[in-house]
């Protein structure tokens, strides 16, 4: 499956109602040739995990501006593991205090794109690190 476009899910978890950043990134990733699924606002961790499973995405971008990263991101990550989606590239965006960034990395978030991150930086990171050629993969938990 090496030649297929990178599939990305951009998800907003939690209660904040601002998704301009998520939408701008969605459009930028599309314009760089990716297939981007945007979930819309107010997703629960369970909804995000289910969308990642059904859409078979290579990349999951989690966005939060309201502190949800501390409580909801870990639930998404745990859900992904439970569903056997260990090879999905996880990135995060939004407002995340520096002291929390290390913790997210330890949980398995590959990169945190804070405010002001150039779009080109996010795009290049995703292009470089998205899993390719995932094959027919038997997933761990199934």
């Amino acid at each position: 499956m090496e030649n297929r476009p990178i599939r990305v899910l951009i998800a907003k978890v939690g209660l904040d109602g601002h998704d301009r950043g998520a939408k701008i990134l969605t459009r930028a990733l599309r314009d760089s040739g990716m297939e981007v699924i945007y979930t819309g606002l107010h997703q629960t961790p369970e909804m995000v995990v289910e969308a990642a499973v059904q859409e078979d995405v290579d990349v999951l971008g989690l966005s939060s501006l309201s502190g949800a990263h501390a409580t909801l991101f870990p639930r998404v990550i745990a859900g992904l593991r439970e569903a056997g989606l260990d090879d999905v590239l996880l990135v995060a965006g939004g407002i995340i205090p520096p002291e929390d960034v290390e913790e997210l990395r330890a949980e398995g978030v590959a990169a945190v794109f804070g405010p002001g991150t150039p779009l080109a930086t996010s795009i290049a990171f995703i292009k470089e690190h998205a899993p390719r050629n995932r094959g027919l993969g038997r997933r761990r938990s199934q």
Partner: protein
Amino acid sequence: MSAPLEAAVHDLAARLRAGDRAALARAISLVEAGDPAGLLLSESLFATTGNAHTIGITGPPGAGKSTLTDALIREYRGRNLRVAVLAVDPVSPRTGGATLGDRIRMTQTAADNGVFVRSSAARGNGHGLGLTTAQVVRLMDAAGYDRILIETVGTGQDGVTIATVAATILLVQTPGSGDEVQALKAGILEVADIFVVNKAELPGTDALLHDLREVARATRERSIWLPPVLPTTARDGTGIVAVADAIEAHRAHLTASPEGERRAMGRLWAEVRALVRNEVLATVEQYLSTPAGASRAVAALQKGADPISVARAVLADRRWTRES
């Protein structure tokens, strides 16, 4: 087929049939990527399919197809039917990228394991859109979904393509955007089995319902099925029960009449033709991209030959066929 690949395909097929949603999702990815394993999977699952009823939902952008789809999902869940959705969005011809946004309007049922929603870019990936869609529908059928909804923007050719995949075609329109019936391409009006006028609270609904009933009557020349024309307000669920009932009635009609068998055969035959066409096209393209395939033709062009006679010469020497 190599033994490891055969084993992997067999394993994925077994997991898909057992209801593993990640397996279905990966199988769809393989089909969409044009991976040979995708066709092998579809082939191995064919004998287990035929239980699902496939419904194509088409219409112009903004008609409310996603909202209608979401309302139908809920109606079907209320009837204890499992539903899979394939939401097809256009792909940018310039970058090849796509924004797949229909999921936003279909997330109310996201945590329900009787619902599977997949977003797809209308690229075809070397298989052609209709062929890829046919394989995805087969995978969803094999996974045990009772109703499969394919949502696609279609006012012209795409809308007719859906007829090569879906058993029941819904055409969704909204009032008040001008001369709606005239604006539609003849093709999709002719293949629609059910007409839905969504946003029926808007002015102009009665006129549109009237016009569509005229169109529906004209289809009686081809079929004893008279396409119903149904007003809905999908946003609040008004009229959705009638739409679901009409789909069931059409399904019963197809089961009871020779038309159902004829159309099912037509879909399979369209798939065979697409498969053969793709294979031939791929073989030709491969030959033409080799130095041997291109050199004589390019040499002839450089000597001033016209492209039509060069193409004729390439076709005549038949060296692109697999045997040579």
